[in-house]
């Protein structure tokens, strides 16, 4: 980063851009969460399973961070695409379907693969977990989800889990605020 860029950053002239990876199993609600975070006039009505990945850009309301979100497909056959974007990602949003008890092990397995990848392993990259679908009656609590995913073992990265209901948009802002704080502290 050149001197002028830094200067522009301090003066608040340049918009701060952040690349965020949105990961998680299929049908966990990644696209729905991203859709909710977009301004209401840009939101899509129907959410269909993502093929490959899609890129969404939006600004957060509180300050001038500009998010570029890589909304990856969670389907098994596209999950091997994830690792190609690890390098660019400056933050990760990991979405979990907290009503799918059976596939919690699969989510954990994908998370372990993520953490053992050389592009992620040694970086202090903030990770935000959404324990999604909290409205369903068979949903596990966010504490239970973090237990099942063994999140307490993450020592070298800042992480945060929040319960969410992406369809109504509940809990999303709390998570995004945390992510913004983390990104800001990392930059200064």
């Amino acid at each position, binding site marked *: 980063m050149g001197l002028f860029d830094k200067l522009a950053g301090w003066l608040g002239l340049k918009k701060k851009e952040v690349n965020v990876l949105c990961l998680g*199993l*299929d*049908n966990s609600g990644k696209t729905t969460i991203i859709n909710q975070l977009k301004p209401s006039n840009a939101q899509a009505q129907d959410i269909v399973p993502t093929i490959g990945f899609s890129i969404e850009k939006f600004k957060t309301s509180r300050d001038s961070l500009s998010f570029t979100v890589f909304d990856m497909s969670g389907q*098994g*056959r596209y*999950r*091997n695409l994830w690792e190609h974007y690890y390098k660019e990602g400056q933050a990760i949003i990991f979405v979990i379907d907290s009503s*799918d*008890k*059976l*596939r*919690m*092990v*699969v989510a954990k*397995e*994908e998370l372990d*693969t993520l953490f053992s990848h050389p592009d992620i392993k040694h970086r202090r990259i903030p990770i935000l977990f959404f324990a999604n679908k909290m409205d369903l009656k*068979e949903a596990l609590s966010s504490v239970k989800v973090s237990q099942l995913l063994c999140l307490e073992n993450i020592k070298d990265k800042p992480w945060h889990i929040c319960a969410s209901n992406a369809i109504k948009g509940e809990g999303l802002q709390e998570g995004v605020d945390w992510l913004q704080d983390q990104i800001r502290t990392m930059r200064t």
Partner: protein
Amino acid sequence: MSAAQIEQDNSMASSKWLDAHYDPVANLYTFSSCMALADLHGDGESKLVVGDLGTGTNNMKLRVYHGTGLLSENTLLDLPTGLVSFLMDQHEPRTPAIAVASGPFIYVYKNLRPYFKFTLPSLEINALEQDVWIQARQDMIDTMSLKEMLEGIRDKAEIPLSVRSLRFLMLEPQDMEAFVNLHKEQPLRRQTVITCIGTLNKNMADEDAVSCLVIGTENKDVFILDPEAFTILSKMSLPSVPTMMDVTGQFDVEFRITVACRNGNIYILRRDSLQPKYCIELSAHPVGLVRMGKNVVVGCAQETLQGYTQKGKKLWTVYLPAPVTTMGVMDLPTRGFQAVLVALASCEVHVYRDKNLVSTIKTPDVVTSICFGRYGREDGTLIMTTKGGGLIVKILKRTAVFEDRDSAPGPPLAQSIRLNVPKKTKLYVDQTMRERENAVAMHRAFQMDLSRLRLAAARAYVKALESSLAPMSASITEPLKMNAVVQGLGPSFKLTLNIQNTAASRPVMNLAVCFLFDEGLYSMRTAFFKIPLLVPGLNYPIDTFVECLSDKGISDIIKVFVLREGKSAPLLTAHINMPVSEGLPLN
């Protein structure tokens, strides 16, 4: 490859599966034939449908699982013998129906609600039996004569008795009257029961095509039913009662039904043939039957797994470490992987690709039913139920790789590498010709030499016995046995002779021991001494000391003779190989 890397590879290999769910008290008792995975609601999430056998007499249930929980439960009237899911029609949404075979009926469920009940056509009744029951109805005969007449029919009639008559014959005399009064008014029927059930696509090869039900009956018949009207489209007969079947193809085009029968044979039926086309005669009864592409894999009661072509030619046999409990097919079309799952009585599930063992799964209990496919949203899910009523769900890892080579210990790879055998030389060919022509003469020469060798050996042995060179005395008057032990590092050794009189009762007297050795090398305090009276059976240790005189690290043999007083020929001889003296002699 470093040790750590190998370790990592091993741990990777052992964990191809994720443990998604284990409920040891699911109270689910079933077999592979009563398990199916189906997208019952058309929402893209497959459910597990199980015909639960309950205790075997009651509590039979049709259970549907979704994720880790039970979704619904329907009571079944009788024990289920088979359960399949199939698409009946082209209507949207494409939700499959469930067919449960039980007794002579097939209960069809749609949207988990009873939809249709199919009954097997009744069979011809023995005319004599019919007459006897008509007489019983009109009270013309009493129960005892009814019993006698039915027994007579049972023993020689060509058409077997109906279930009612057979049950009547089983009763105790005091119960017979009530049984006859209860049943005599109803018309007599003879019905067979369903033993196995399968599905066959009607006219399309697609996964979601409309399919017919294929059923095997106790009456040695195979029926193919229309998917919508449940009429019998085709009927085929077998030489024995079918127990397991596998169906492939399309009804309107060409199909193949592979049926394992109770007589231990496997028959292969095809379209346009009322009789089996091919027959595989197994050496032991089949326990599991699975089709892999065009081949048939059979698990036999003799702890073997055998592969056959679709024409009944045997391809291979694998010997298993334990009896087979059940078998299933593992099909992953997205990865192009197909394998056979074999559950063993040793609480293991082996995954075989052809005859190669590619993976082993340990289970906490003996697996009685196994099923692989899409469950929930996960394609590679393995579902097992155990003998104790447990339910195990495992998910294949996305990164799991099955190696093609055999992971079981077997002949090393080098064994199958072809050796570079040199070409046959003229000399070799000449020798072969000579051997072929003079085979008899060569054999005789060999036999002659062998006999001579034996003779020479026997002669040497006799000579040794005659001259008492052996440490066992052969003479009848003095049967003696001796062995010698040398102790010490040198230069002085302790020599212990253990002498035993092996006679039954006679003691031996007047014996002496004499040593013969190189006097330049060894010295002995007493090279000759007498032996006391030897009582039969006891072991007499005699000690003496030998001094080694040389410091050159050489050793020699010391000969021990046991002599009888007044006779120069020894009774027995022992050669003692002295050890090399490790110490230096004191001057």
